[in-house]
């Protein structure tokens, strides 16, 4: 098996998307931590570092276009470049949601602490786990795991409904909690959207490994 010029470029592209995935995961985890632990400096850090993620996205875009134009990949190579090019903006959007959660944390952290709730941190944990597993599955081209992660999006959707009701009740019972609860509602919505984006990543991994389009197949 010959080592091609293309292999070096694909390896570099793989490294870059893994770095972007890692940065996105970190942004999400920190954003949630800044909220749960009322750590506003950490929230600010998430916002400050979003620029780095944007730059990573641009770099991967440039590399993908260059490989398509100059190397004209085919078959698995082509599917890999296409998957990376499509996953990159998804990761960037997940990072944007993390930034929005961090922004919400900056506001919520100035409000009185709301009473404890159980569903919300679990939902955040599920979203973070799904993202991590989806990226691992992409790295190892394990489409079976990707399909399992897609199934877990239901958990997030169900949790979102419960959190929604929980926060609504909180607002009704205690009008002074309204500002904090309203912002938390947005946070829950961001997590729910992240679940959808992770599903998109998983579908692209199925495309990469099986050359099958499962998007919109339900």
């Amino acid at each position, binding site marked *: *098996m*010959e080592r*091609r010029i*293309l292999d070096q470029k694909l390896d570099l592209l793989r490294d870059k998307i893994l770095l972007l995935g890692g940065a996105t995961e970190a942004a999400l985890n920190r954003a949630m931590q800044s909220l749960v632990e009322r750590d506003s400096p950490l929230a600010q850090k998430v916002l400050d570092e979003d620029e780095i993620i944007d730059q990573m996205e641009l770099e991967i875009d440039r590399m993908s276009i260059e490989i398509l134009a100059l190397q*004209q*990949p*085919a*078959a*698995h*190579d*082509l*599917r890999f470049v296409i998957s990376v090019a499509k996953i990159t903006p998804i990761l960037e959007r997940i990072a944007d949601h993390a930034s929005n959660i961090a922004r919400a944390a900056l506001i919520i952290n100035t409000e009185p602490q709301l009473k404890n709730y159980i569903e919300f941190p679990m939902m955040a944990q599920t979203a973070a786990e799904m993202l991590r597993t989806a990226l691992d599955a992409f790295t190892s081209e394990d489409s079976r795991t990707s399909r399992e992660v897609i199934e877990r999006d239901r958990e997030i959707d169900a949790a979102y409904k419960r959190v929604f009701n929980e926060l609504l009740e909180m607002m009704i019972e205690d009008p002074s909690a309204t500002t904090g609860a309203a912002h938390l509602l947005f946070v829950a919505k961001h997590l729910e959207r992240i679940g959808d984006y992770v599903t998109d990543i998983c579908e692209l991994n199925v495309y990469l490994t099986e*050359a099958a389009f499962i998007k919109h197949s339900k």
Partner: protein
Amino acid sequence: MESKISVKNLDFFYGSNQALYDISLDIPEREVIAFIGPSGCGKSTFLRTLNRMNDTIASASVKGSVMMDGKNIYASGTDVVALRRRVGMVFQKSNPFPKSIFENVAYGIRINGIHSNKADLEERVERALKNAALWEEVKDRLNSSAFGLSGGQQQRLCIARALAVQPEVILMDEPASALDPIATQKIEELVVELKRDYTIVIVTHNMQQAARVSDRTAFFMLGKLVEFNPTQKMFTNPDEKLTEDYITGRFG
């Protein structure tokens, strides 16, 4: 899908050396089929079995059948000259006759006695040159030597010559490999244009060319047909690992 040519269990030998092994493949009418594979894989040999060009090699022998419109072209009593009129050929290196542009195209029409009179002959030459996308460039110098044309124009002249005798199938053996990118693009556009009326089989070493012009691609290796699939499938998700390795340049 209507098969123009249907090949069944074809073996081909140069003397005692077997060059093709048990090839079976259906070529649909009015499609472009690309043959790809490393040098010496048998793709050109196979192309030449489709109009019995290999008959000119004394030691060559064939087993199996090549059905064209349901009749075996290797059946005894086949008129090989008539066959080659139906299945025209264009080669890697353009090979115009040392004659005028007009006479190059008119030659096949004359020897086959296709035309009824001089006006008809001129009309047929013009139509062939138009179909080969060459007319506008040569209409004012039809009586000049064909050798005065550029490489790309000479190749289109050879295509016009092939078209002039009204073939049904056109075999092209690396028709653009000696041409610059602009001339290559013209030939490729022509190939896509011609499939409205003709069935085209093209051998190419240029993978992107196969991807650009063909509807189906056949991949050959060591005299065997490894895979034959719609081109879109071949280049995004081939069935065979060998095909994948070849089209992605993993072996030379």
